[in-house]
């Protein structure tokens, strides 16, 4: 097995000055098969079966989710209006009655999110030019970006032009760690997603 190399991302200077602990990291991965992996589906099922409404509310006090909620507030997002990724996954789980397998890529991202609380995004490496980081646009919006272009608004799912398609083999996994989230947790989210994709 080859060593998995996580690349630290860059943070634009004005953003780093405001949030010195904000982190972004990426990892290249290869999806062996677009179909859901039975092992990952089983793990998602187990995570769903141990979950109830009280936990969905109380997870806002969990260290990692609390860090994202605090960061959301600090950057002007109301986490009651736009839920943090982990809370949105919890709500989806309650509404759908379980974590339904949706293909290997979606399952891997969901597993990493549920296990660590850190959102992992999956980009098409052919569309990304250089390392991924967090930038500030002229209008003051925080975005994920590469060396030449904006890849989408931070924490927004609205713009998925650069996201990998579900059947794509080569992928670029990107994790965004809010201030206060330990580096090891961010790395773990990437490793988890990558191992779910490769089946190792």
């Amino acid at each position: 097995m080859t060593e998995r190399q996580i690349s630290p991302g860059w943070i634009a200077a004005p953003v780093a000055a405001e949030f010195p602990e904000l982190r972004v990291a990426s990892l290249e991965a290869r999806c062996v098969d677009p179909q859901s992996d039975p092992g990952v589906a089983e793990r998602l099922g187990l995570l769903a079966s141990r979950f109830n409404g009280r936990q969905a509310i109380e997870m806002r006090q969990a260290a990692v989710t609390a860090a994202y909620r605090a960061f959301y507030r600090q950057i002007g997002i109301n986490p009651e209006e736009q839920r943090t990724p982990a809370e949105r996954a919890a709500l989806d789980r309650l509404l759908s009655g379980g974590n339904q397998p949706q293909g290997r890529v979606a399952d891997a991202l969901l597993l990493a999110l549920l296990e660590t609380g850190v959102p992992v995004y999956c980009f098409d490496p052919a569309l990304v030019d250089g390392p991924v980081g967090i930038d500030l646009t002229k209008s003051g919006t925080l975005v994920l970006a590469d060396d030449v272009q904006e890849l989408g608004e931070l924490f927004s799912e609205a713009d998925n032009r650069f996201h990998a398609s579900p059947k794509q083999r080569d992928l670029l996994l990107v994790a965004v760690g809010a201030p206060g989230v330990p580096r090891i947790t961010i790395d773990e989210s990437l490793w988890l997603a990558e191992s779910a994709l490769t089946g190792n």
Partner: protein
Amino acid sequence: MASLLIENELGVVPADETSARRTLLLQIAGLERTLARECCEAFPDELELTALPHGAARIQNLEQLEVLRDALVGAVAEARQALVERERRRESARDRLSALIDDPRANRRERITQAELGIGGCGVWSAVPRLGPMGRLMGWWRVKLSSGCPLAT
């Protein structure tokens, strides 16, 4: 760069914006955690709070941070007030239940739900006559807890 005036024990002194921003960001994070704790405390009830600012992810200016901090202070106060009022209603329900148990006949029109008491489930405490109409005529009353949620229709 804009400067602030902060009053401390030495009087009004200028302070640099960076430290003011840092302080506000820390306050906002702390208030968010407090608000989250109050929301968990309120479960299974949902707190109805005044809507807080919401927008795209951005670096907020000093004024926006202050507005948000003040709004969060207001929301925490609202949440605490709601919890105090809920506890007052529960206390009142417990008193009514106590009175019902002490004297079912005098309080036979009383109905106290588990929700009013802050207990899970759909049961209702009420006074019912022993032996049906006979008990009603003779004044034999007892306290009963209904078996729970009605069947879905």
